[in-house]
């Protein structure tokens, strides 16, 4: 969709900010945007949990213990156990790894490839732009779930393929947004001046255009992070994503969680809370980032 092009594009501010003290920026951010800071804190917490999973998780997430099937939350199992006697808390902790892996993997690749396509399309313009836009339009119109289904069916059911299935629909969305931003920069006089001065394409793109699309890029990135985690949860719930016995939040909501929802609700409640919390945090942070970088940018 068409995005309102920011007229006063953030051009040199980004580079200047990099020179200022990192710490000062962070402190300023926390003070002025408490919600965003809270979001960032949760994200950080998630990353820490994921990295230290094997230290902090009380049990082996895949250890089947039929003696403790469907146990309520108790001192031994803080969040109860599932239909196989596996500790829900441990599975949630390890599940954060899958969530973040898929989230970051899909978001970074998707946003970056999208950005490259967007900038390239804007820079070269003309025929290249026209054709690329059509191709991107086609993929955006494609129903997301079908694309994911097809990719998983073709490539098989594995984590890298899942990441690809989630990344591919994101690329065109990012490309179009970045392209809008990049277009306005293309029109700027100093780009033409640079061409006139004989600078090569690569140099102009890298030194002049890319830094100026940093803002929308970062915003798309954080927005995708949340969406990727949600999409992974949906796909796992449908049975297309991560497979048993790997712990993954969406997977934990499948099958037995729904079957036993009445007698053992903890199986369904906690993974959903985890997903919501993670996506919530990413979105809070992303929102505040957008507000800080360029409030005029209206994204969906």
């Amino acid at each position, binding site marked *: *969709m*068409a995005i*309102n*092009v920011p007229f006063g594009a953030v051009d040199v501010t980004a580079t200047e900010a990099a020179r200022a003290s990192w710490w000062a920026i962070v402190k300023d951010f926390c003070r002025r945007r408490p*919600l965003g800071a809270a979001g960032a804190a949760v994200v950080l917490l998630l990353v820490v949990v994921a990295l230290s999973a094997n230290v902090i998780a009380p049990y082996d997430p895949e250890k089947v213990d039929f003696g403790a099937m469907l146990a309520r939350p108790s001192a031994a199992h803080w969040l109860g156990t599932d239909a196989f006697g596996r500790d829900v808390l441990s599975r949630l902790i390890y599940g954060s790894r899958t969530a973040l892996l898929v989230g970051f993997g899909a978001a970074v690749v998707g946003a970056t490839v999208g950005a490259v396509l967007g900038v390239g399309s804007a820079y070269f313009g003309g025929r290249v732009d026209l054709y690329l836009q*059509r*191709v991107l*339009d*086609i*993929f*955006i*119109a*494609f*129903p*997301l*779930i*079908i694309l994911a*289904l*097809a990719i998983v*069916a*073709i490539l098989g059911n594995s984590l890298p393929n899942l990441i690809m299935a989630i990344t591919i629909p994101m690329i065109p969305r990012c490309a179009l947004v970045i392209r809008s931003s990049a*277009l306005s920069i293309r029109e700027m006089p100093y780009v033409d001046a640079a061409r006139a001065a004989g600078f090569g394409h690569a140099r102009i793109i890298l030194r002049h255009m890319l830094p100026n699309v940093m803002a929308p890029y970062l915003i798309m990135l954080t927005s995708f992070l*949340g969406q990727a985690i*949600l999409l992974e*949860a*949906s796909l796992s*719930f*449908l049975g297309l994503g991560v497979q048993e016995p790997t712990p993954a939040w*969406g997977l934990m*909501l499948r099958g037995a*969680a*729904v079957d036993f*929802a*009445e007698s053992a*609700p903890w199986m*369904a*409640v906690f*993974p*959903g809370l985890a*997903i*919501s*919390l*993670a*996506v*919530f945090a990413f*979105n*809070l942070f992303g*929102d505040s980032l957008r507000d800080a970088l360029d409030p005029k940018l*209206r994204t*969906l």
Partner: protein
Amino acid sequence: MWKYVVKRFLLMIPTLFGVAVVIFVLMRIVPGDIVELRFSGESSYASKENLAAERARYGLDQPLWKQFATWIWGLVRFDFGTSMWTGAPILQEIKLRFALSLQLAIMATVVGVLIALPLGVAAALKQDTWVDYLARVVSIAGIATPSFWLGILMILTLLVVFRWLPPMVYTPFWVNPWQNLLQLIWPALAVGYRLSAVATRMTRSAMLEVLREDYIRTARAKGLVEMLILKRHALKNAMLPVLTVTGIEFAFLMGGLVVTEQVFNLNGLGLLFVQAVTRRDYTMTQALVLLVAAVFIIVNFFMDLMYGWLDPRIRYR
């Protein structure tokens, strides 16, 4: 202006064609086919000759370009063909589920808008106060919460607290409106909440944008009552971007509610989608994808028109 309209209209055609090509190719790359599936039940074995004969019956032994051409030629004459799995005309199969999906999409959108408008406006008017923060938190929660999980929780709550389950079989609205609404209100709420989240944010930022405009300041300086200013100027102008966002989200809802439908046991387009792909029902999948893509592209077209009308800079690109 007209040149712009015509140009954007003409661009829809190659996009739709591109979608047709992509789904056609995609379905044929995906391994396995419907013939294998049909004759590999729990208690049978079909010989290679049988399978080959059946493939020929579906036209699957023809060269790919010919299959594609036959399909496109049918489409041009509005003949969508028959479902490979049931043999019934595709339009008939779609019609069965269309009413439900459409109704759900409409109800969800209504729910979403009813929540989003007051919330977004309030947040904009009282920017940076607790009202604003609350609204933003509630709306982000709506985006963050997986709607299928919300659905599971809803059913669980109804079951445990009220000892009641919503009707599980679809009755069309004109047959029994009460049963119909009783079944569809729950998924509408779950989906609508998410939609409201997006719309709230849009409303809020659109209102903020408009409230900063000069003419609003002038009206305030003239001393008109605050509410009148709101009604006459701000809201009207803020509506446009909100409408476009709502339009896009609505387009997504047709056929995009795969997981929600599974949770609430709804026989809608989403389920048809998944069944068609799982069964390698080429004709059905292709028709559905085109339908959904067409809806999306047309909504986008109208949206582009509106933006073009609003913002002349975009028009001349």
